[in-house]
């Protein structure tokens, strides 16, 4: 059995947006190998994971809640587990969940698993693919007319994984409040990369991803609630009063949670540099589009590092290249660049997050060379 990883970040620049924000910091990796044994955080556990003081998970949960502006948070195994827990808390037979048009598949699955009927809003289509507050309000109304009750929950993807569009969560929050529907903000691609404050945005619930955006080993993430919702989300078992129902008692309890804890100080620092990250993405887009026959899709100018390109330029080169559709992946690999799907030339997604300016320059030069092939 081989454990060799396909993309080794010490050797190659990994452009996959899934990978860039979750590239574990040295602090996170050092913590992880100290806690690689299965139940390694449980030596001093008195029965509640989030009350463990050594390692200091109790303080971490408070610190994390403060960082993301939520009254209370708990560590989960990822954003999707948090979404399911929240949907499950709010679900009632015959009720619906309203989702934005750019929601991740795991949002649908989480709502469906919780027994909610899914109502999807629209987006503006090509070229921006933006989700508008109006379309969200219309979908909330449609859900109510179809089910006879307001939606049990609405979920807004703060930054989507297809286009990297950043939604104005505060605006959506107001619409949901007016409709009497609690709003979940999916921050898998935002919290940990950029400043996010749930209270300022007026959201009721929030989920985030440690392995996607907090420079942590996975699987790990968090869910949070504000105000009265916290009591409902973090309700405990009648038979086991110190065990949270939605957390199934305990969640992450090893290398994943301590790496998340160890990564947080560095994450707090890096979100202060968010403007520079966005500027890097904008600079990269300009350089790519200057090559011709390349178009950035989604909102412009970029307000996030996840970039989707439509790339007829590379598709045309592929038609005359002996490697056909695999030429782009191969040409990038030859230059120490990875993260694009093999065979993909018509379009691709990527991220510039965390790369140095020199590395971004290197990427631009590499794509320029490939464009001349």
């Amino acid at each position, binding site marked *: 059995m081989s454990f060799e990883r396909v993309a080794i970040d010490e050797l190659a620049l990994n452009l996959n947006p899934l990978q860039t924000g979750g590239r574990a910091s040295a602090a996170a990796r050092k913590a992880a190998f*100290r806690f690689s044994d299965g139940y390694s955080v449980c030596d001093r556990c008195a029965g509640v994971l989030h009350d463990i003081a050594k390692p200091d998970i109790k303080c971490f949960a408070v610190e994390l809640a403060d960082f993301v502006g939520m009254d209370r948070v708990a560590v989960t195994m990822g954003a999707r587990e948090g979404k399911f827990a929240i949907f499950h808390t709010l679900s009632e037979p015959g009720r619906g969940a309203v989702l934005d048009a750019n929601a991740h598949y795991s949002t649908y699955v989480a709502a469906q698993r919780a027994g909610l009927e899914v109502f999807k809003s629209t987006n503006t289509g090509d070229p921006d693919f933006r989700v508008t507050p109006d379309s969200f309000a219309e979908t909330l109304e449609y859900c109510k007319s179809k089910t006879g009750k307001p939606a049990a929950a609405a979920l807004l993807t703060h930054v989507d994984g297809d286009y990297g569009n950043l939604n104005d969560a505060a605006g959506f929050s107001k619409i949901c409040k007016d409709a009497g529907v609690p709003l979940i903000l999916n921050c898998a691609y935002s919290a940990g990369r950029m400043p996010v404050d749930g209270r300022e945005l007026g959201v009721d619930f929030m989920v985030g991803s440690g392995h996607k955006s907090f420079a942590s080993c996975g699987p790990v993430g968090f869910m949070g609630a504000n105000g009265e919702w916290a009591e409902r989300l973090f309700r405990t078992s009648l038979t086991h009063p110190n065990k949270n129902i939605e957390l199934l008692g305990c969640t992450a309890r090893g290398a994943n949670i301590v790496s998340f804890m160890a990564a947080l100080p560095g994450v707090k620092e890096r979100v202060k540099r968010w403007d520079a990250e966005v500027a890097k993405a904008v600079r990269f887009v300009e350089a790519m589009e200057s090559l011709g026959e390349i178009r950035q899709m989604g909102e412009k100018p970029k307000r996030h590092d996840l970039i989707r390109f439509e790339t007829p330029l590379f598709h045309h080169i592929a038609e005359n290249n002996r490697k056909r559709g695999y030429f782009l992946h191969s040409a990038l690999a030859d230059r120490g660049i990875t993260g694009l799907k093999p065979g993909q030339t018509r379009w691709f997604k990527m991220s510039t997050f965390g790369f140095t300016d020199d590395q971004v320059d290197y990427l631009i030069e590499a794509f320029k060379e490939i464009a001349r092939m």
Partner: protein
Amino acid sequence: MDKTIAQRNKQRVEDTFRVLDLMEDVRDIWRDAAPLQNLSEEGRAALTKKIEKARKALDRIEASL
């Protein structure tokens, strides 16, 4: 357990983690310099320092055997 032995064992394990920690720092140097790994003067100096520290820790482990 005899205190001397306990102290020796503790030191060995601490040194083991020290080496691992230093190597994680080295990984970051490679990551920041990927893919060409052309190190600046500062980068080279930092790397050399990490290696020296790791070597000392390894020497201590070996000497304790």
